[in-house]
């Protein structure tokens, strides 16, 4: 490619200043404190109980974490547009009840029950979005209403009983409890991810060089590939020494991947971050702000419904208590701990993974050392307080630091 001396309009292209290459790496640095705290938690609990880092316990943790993680992913989406959904737990409980009643009492095929449950969640979310964008009711009020209505609907759906068991031979139960990726398949996925990321990196490098933009060096790309291969391969290999990667875990990580691509690489994702950052600017830039809000609320509630369905499968039952308020608060806490800002605009889909990892690392550790259940709430609450403080301080420093 030749360098044009003048542009289309005949204007001189001034000597381009030497802009430094900024890789995504600098953004990745935000997750370092979370990763460090995960390591610290692991070391402390391992010292207290030798079974903590056993493959068996880690597999259990990933299974427990994946339903909370899917809830958290939904919460990340609404937090990114600067709103909140306080009803994700209730929506997941409602969808669990719909699946159980649909399959057991109404005799629906499982697929129909699943679709009905997820659609019910999505419809609730769309209702939030409509009330928020058309009537201007604050989202915490709307979703608080949704929380109460959801709990009530769940009771009505389950009535006359307070819980309903799913048959153990149900495909949903077997998927949630017993399906694991074949060890070879799981390592093949890791290989495909590493190769895919590296090829994409090389292609990006070639395009950037052709456009005379700063590009990452080959060494940087190779280092990334190496870190990724070890960082993914080692844990997968270790989990495979026990039961391995659960089907639910794969669903969770797959959803995170899709959400990550949507948030970072599509126009919709750009509009989500713009709206969370400054809604009036986003509107004046021409984004369809109402539609984006609507999509975020809908996606969040639909994800909550998916989480509810999977947890019904894992428990082989739908209970009235399922999806209580503490589940919602855990999901919100995990999103913030993982690095998504409560003030909107900043965050990533991967913060759902990091956040639930921290929350469940604490929960599982305290269970293993036989701590009182109450302690789990207190410790998770304190960690949330820390994360929110960091979030608020970093926001303040950005606003003051102009």
């Amino acid at each position, binding site marked *: 490619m030749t360098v044009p001396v003048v542009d289309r309009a005949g*204007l001189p292209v001034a000597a*381009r200043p030497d802009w430094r290459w900024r890789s995504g790496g600098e953004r990745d640095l935000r997750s370092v404190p979370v990763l460090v705290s995960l390591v610290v938690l692991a070391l402390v609990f391992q010292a207290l109980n030798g079974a903590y880092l056993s493959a068996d316990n880690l597999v259990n943790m990933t299974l427990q974490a994946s339903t909370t993680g899917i809830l958290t992913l939904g919460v990340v989406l609404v937090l990114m547009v600067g709103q909140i959904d306080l009803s994700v737990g209730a929506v997941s409980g409602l969808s669990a009840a719909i699946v159980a009643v649909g399959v057991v009492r109404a005799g629906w095929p499982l697929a129909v029950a699943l679709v009905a449950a997820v659609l019910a969640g999505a419809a609730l979310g769309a209702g939030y979005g409509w009330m928020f964008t058309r009537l201007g009711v604050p989202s915490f009020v709307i979703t608080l209403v949704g929380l109460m209505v959801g709990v009530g609907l769940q009771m009505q759906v389950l009535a006359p009983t307070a819980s309903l068991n799913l048959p153990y031979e149900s495909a949903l139960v077997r998927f949630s409890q017993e399906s694991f990726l074949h060890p070879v398949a799981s390592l093949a996925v890791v290989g495909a991810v590493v190769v895919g990321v590296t090829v994409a990196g090389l292609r990006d490098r070639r395009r950037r060089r052709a456009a005379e*933009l700063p590009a990452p060096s080959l060494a940087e790309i190779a280092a990334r590939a190496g870190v990724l291969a070890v960082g993914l391969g080692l844990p997968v290999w270790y989990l495979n020494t026990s039961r391995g990667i659960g089907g639910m875990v794969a669903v969770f990580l797959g959803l995170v991947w899709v959400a990550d691509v949507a948030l970072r*690489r599509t126009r919709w994702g750009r509009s989500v971050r713009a709206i969370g950052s*400054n809604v009036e600017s986003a509107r004046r*830039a021409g984004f369809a702000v109402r539609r984006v809000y609507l999509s975020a609320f809908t996606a969040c509630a639909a994800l909550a419904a998916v989480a509810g369905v999977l947890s019904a499968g894992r428990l082989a039952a739908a209970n009235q208590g399922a999806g209580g308020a503490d589940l919602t608060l855990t999901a919100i806490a995990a999103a913030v701990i993982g690095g998504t800002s409560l003030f909107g605009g900043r965050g990533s889909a991967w913060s759902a993974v990091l956040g639930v990892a921290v929350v469940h690392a604490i929960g599982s550790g305290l269970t293993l050392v036989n701590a009182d259940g109450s302690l789990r709430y207190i410790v998770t609450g304190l960690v949330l307080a820390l994360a929110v403080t960091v979030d608020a301080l970093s926001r303040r420093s950005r*606003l003051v630091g102009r």
Partner: protein
Amino acid sequence: MTHPPVMSLRGITHSFGAVRALVDVDLDVHAHEVVAVVGDNGAGKSTLVAVLAGALVPDAGEVVVDGQEVLLRSPGLARQLGVATVFQDLALCEDLDVVENVFLGQELRRGPLLDEVAMEREAQRLLAQLAARVPSVRAPVSELSGGQRQAVAVARALVGEPRVLVLDEPTASLGVTQTAEVLNLVERVRDRGYGVVLVSQNMADVQAVADRVVVLRRGRVNGVFDGETASYEEIIAAITGVVPNRAGGAR
């Protein structure tokens, strides 16, 4: 001028509650022309800009683009019609980086995904053209100084070759050099054949580049002057209303 205006406002009237921000305002923007809109604080300049930008649908009046009456009901639509605006508050997103802000709402795509390489290259070209120096085009806007932000906002308006460029006090937070760059840019954009609406409080800026000066006072047009011939005193008089002045400049 023999050519019809690329954009005109006819009888634009808008109130915020009891405040009559615009009253029966007419404004023509021709190709190859810089129209300066001047007026005291609260005269209605930014409200007029919002109407041009599609950010505000006025209570009454019509907007004509290329001889067609249009309802500018959204900023996106105005943009599609070729009207690009630099708002007084810049309308940037602090958490987004420079490239993301320059292409906000007009992202380039390859297939379904964003084309970051093309956007980064074009953003660099636009900023270089403005002689703007930013620490990195991948730095969030929250890290930039006032002048750098202004450059980002102006660069955004130049994306996709607009036909009408509307600037609301674009030099307010700029230093001497940057102000000169923006005024240069305004002239270059005009020479490329675009129409420019320059809202300003700075008489020196106005006299440097304006072909026509429209004075707003309390929401009304209180005089239209030829940029070449009008005197500083005449314009100031129309702004302050000390001497009611209806001097019709060249149209």
